[in-house]
């Protein structure tokens, strides 16, 4: 008979799935705001590599001449984004779940191993645990970025009342650039995340919705099961 193995606690799933539409709407409304002063671009030497954003991006996202609308959505949903993030981080600390995510000294090398394995350049399997080293880095990174978005956002929202915070982020204009760069970071994370979820398959995705993975039928219990039963 198959086994249901619990994987993701309920609060992790709830906060994760709240974050999906909220972060999407925050990025979209952020682009509505950015449109009004869209100065960022990547240049190498004098050569323009990419302009944030080409006109077609604004057209596709219906983001032209909507600054007031963008601000109204951004500053309403920022509450949900912040509260959801704070609830998640607080609960990971209360439950001790954070230990699954916290990188250590070996993590960077192991993450490289994961990458080489995923790219089929190295056969040997990397250690997995609840999350492998690459996941640890990616997830810890994106949680830190969330905090960064919140604080750089406050720094550009209240540059007089919170002028010390604006100062910490290198001034008003630099804080705005950081806030924007973090958003580009989310988009990069999202692309890799989606690719990895597709690669990992149905059982993994189901676990993010239902909380458990289904282990197929095994003829005899594994050695680990025996050892834990004797241990207990």
């Amino acid at each position, binding site marked *: *008979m*198959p*086994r*249901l*193995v*619990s994987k993701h606690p309920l609060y992790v799933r709830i906060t994760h*799935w709240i974050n999906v*539409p909220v972060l999407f*709407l925050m990025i979209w409304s952020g682009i509505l*705001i*950015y449109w*009004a*002063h869209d*100065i960022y671009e990547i240049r190498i030497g004098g050569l323009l590599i990419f302009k944030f954003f080409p006109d077609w991006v604004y057209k596709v996202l219906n983001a032209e001449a909507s*600054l*007031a*609308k963008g*601000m*109204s*959505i951004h*500053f*309403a949903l920022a*509450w949900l984004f912040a509260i959801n993030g704070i609830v998640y981080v607080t609960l990971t600390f209360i439950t001790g779940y954070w230990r699954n995510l916290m990188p250590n000294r070996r993590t960077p090398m192991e993450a490289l191993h994961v990458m080489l394995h995923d790219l089929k350049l190295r056969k040997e399997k990397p250690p997995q645990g*609840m999350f492998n080293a690459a996941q640890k880095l990616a997830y810890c990174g994106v949680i830190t970025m969330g905090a960064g978005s919140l604080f750089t956002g406050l720094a550009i*929202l*209240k*540059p*007089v*009342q919170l*002028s010390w915070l*604006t*100062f910490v982020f290198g001034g*008003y*204009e630099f804080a*705005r650039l950081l806030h924007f760069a973090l958003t580009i970071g989310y988009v990069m994370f999202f692309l890799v995340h989606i690719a990895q979820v597709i690669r990992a398959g149905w059982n993994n995705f*189901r676990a993010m*919705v*239902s*909380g*458990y993975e*289904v*282990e197929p039928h095994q003829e005899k219990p594994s050695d*680990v*099961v025996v050892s*834990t039963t004797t*241990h207990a």
Partner: protein
Amino acid sequence: MSSSPQPPMPNPPNHGVEVTTQQAKRKTRRAFIGFAGAGLFGAGAWAWLGSRSLENALPWPFRKAHEFNEQIGRALFDPNRLAPEFSPTMAREPRPNGPHGMPVATATDWKVAIEWANGKQSLSVAELFKDVPRVESTTEFKCIEGWSSIVTWGGIRLVDAAKKHGWPVSDFEYVSMMTPDGAYYVGLDRPSALHPQTLLCDTMNGEPLTALHGAPVRLIIPVKYGIKNIKWIGRIAFMNIRPDDYWAQRGYDWYSGL
């Protein structure tokens, strides 16, 4: 292997519960129905929010969100906290942006009307500035569009002008300012209006204000976005009802405090 006992595993592997294939399928189905339901609820809530009646060009829940944030902004506001000041050598000419309310020609007999419930004054710019200490400050002018510009402004503090001319500012919660033709108007909360960096200005970067930047007199209020820094002031009114605000009526936050 040595005979010493093995250390206990930090996380004993979770081997879950044995179920029938049927039960596994049912549980999965139930989870996904809940997931889809939550998704539909979210989509419905979003559609509902966006289709509410408009209050100053925003669906009212979003207008209420601005007002809620305003309450926090006001609670956070400390009149002793100053906008950072910069060296005048960093000053540049800002973009002029808003042409709304710009007079065709700057009248030589420009008057500023000051009004409150039971009082009225009409002052020329010279009278307005007479015997009020002049100040200069170099601050970062922040447009709501996202750009900013360091500018040196010269003029008088609004709070000093109020003292000199006997405006009963403490009796009123709000200040309204308007261009002579009434085409552009801003509403300000009293604490922001009386902030020590809030200036009635007649110079910019050491030169007399140009027509494009609000001559003969404009407001500089570094605790607000540029939209509140009204040019070509023709009327100042103290009142207890929230004054109309040109951009707030067009969907922006009335408070717009920094």
